[in-house]
């Protein structure tokens, strides 16, 4: 059975459209939501695993999403932090919505929880030391 993990970025006008419903109903896909950040009226992000169908069905579903205006990317990317070079300033935490990057007491060292990361890449540019990269 084919499976595919993708990151879906919704423009603000689509956050109130029931797109996942169509994926289930029209393309017969099972959708496992891994991470989600959807606020009506703002850009939304959804990391999903699509399965339960043949490869063609998944691709057709993705094609449908793209036609609706959703930006679709594979989740093969991950954020890499060069910890030895980190000065633990906390600048990257300012832009990390899912709080994958955090800086907390008692030691005020930067902590990166990969499981919470939605690979939005905001931290890459926010890091003053330029030590956060995206791997493909």
């Amino acid at each position, binding site marked *: 059975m084919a499976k595919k993990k993708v990151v879906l970025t919704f423009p603000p006008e689509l956050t109130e459209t029931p797109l996942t419903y169509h994926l289930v109903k029209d393309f017969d896909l099972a959708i496992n939501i891994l991470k989600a950040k959807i606020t009506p009226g703002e850009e939304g992000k959804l990391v999903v695993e699509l399965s339960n169908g043949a490869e063609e069905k998944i691709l057709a579903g993705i094609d449908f999403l793209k036609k609706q205006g959703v930006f679709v990317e594979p989740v093969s990317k991950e954020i890499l932090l060069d910890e030895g070079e980190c000065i633990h300033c906390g600048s990257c935490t300012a*832009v990390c919505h899912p709080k994958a990057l955090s800086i907390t007491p008692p030691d005020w060292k930067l902590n990166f929880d990969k499981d919470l990361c939605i690979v939005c890449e905001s931290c890459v540019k926010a890091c003053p030391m330029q030590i956060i990269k995206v791997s493909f």
Partner: protein
Amino acid sequence: MKTYAEINEKIKQGKAVVFTAEEIIDVVKEKGYAAAAREVDVVTTATFGPMCSSGAFLNFGHSDPPIRMAKVWLNDVPAYAGIAAVDAYIGATELSETKGMSYGGAHVIEALVRGERVELKATSYGTDCYPRKEIRTFAGLNDINQAYLFNPRNVYQNYSVAVNTSNRTIYTYMGALLPNLGNATYSTAGELSPLLNDPYYRTIGIGTRIFLGGGTGYVAWEGTQHNPNQNRDINGIPIASAGTLALIGDLKQMKREFLRAAIFDRYGVTMYVGVGIPIPILDEEMLKQTAVSNRDIKATIFDYSVPKRSKPNFGQVSYAELRSGAITINGKEVPTAPLSSLNQARKIAQILKEWISVGQFSLTEPVQSLPAESKVKPLEIREQEV
């Protein structure tokens, strides 16, 4: 009451009692002000944050035939050479002429501190005594004569909390500020920060010996925009950016760990500078100042989406609230993030404590106090000189 001489005598004998400005808070809780003031000799303070107003004077030595360098570039970053023949000042925020915002003066300084040679290019108009008109070579800290940091404005006594009420992300020296009060950034070490522990500049003044970038440095002068007249809380601590220091120190002693080039996205290049300043516990009053905690230090929240000299503000929050991870503005919970590294500042405070404890770093009495009164003037745009 203790004098500088008495404290230095104890330091010399390796008997000085030293705590960091964080540790002293618990010492006071346990012993009370009076006993702590008797027992403690020195409290160390520190900060490690982005400080744009930084740079280094370099003297390259004379080539043969010699050149009166009129224009100087280091790794394609222009350095100011409008001084004597082979002197130049490389400013931290100066951008590369070839790499733009991804490389600047701070990177040149960091490369030098790391022991690298940088490409030195200079041009000149040529004179009878300095006939050479062009030079290109590579030079590192071991090759050149003097190399010293001279930072016109460091160690701000308190700073803004930055937020953005507009509907787009803005890119500032306070980092990326998310729309609709999406985040709040702040940049001081709070209770560990030097000038928040000596709010009236009683012991930190011109000539004060300090930790600078991993080596020894000195307070050279009041910093630019030094503003002791800033509004103060009832405890005497300014509630927004106030005093500043001009610092000087030998670049050849410095370490990359405490001097790091930085890029603020779509803003530019700056440098994280590590500074540690010892405060002698001359009496109970001085001890009280150093025992201040994050609960008692307030900062003002400014709206950076208003690109004006005077930005609207949302009142004050304490550093304890900022450190809690979120503050409330207009009923909205806003996540907070620091820009200066408390982790690194603590390292610096510990190193300075160690230097003093083992007797290798003695204290200096200011040769002159910083101004206790002075206002920051705005720049008016005039059509003509009269």
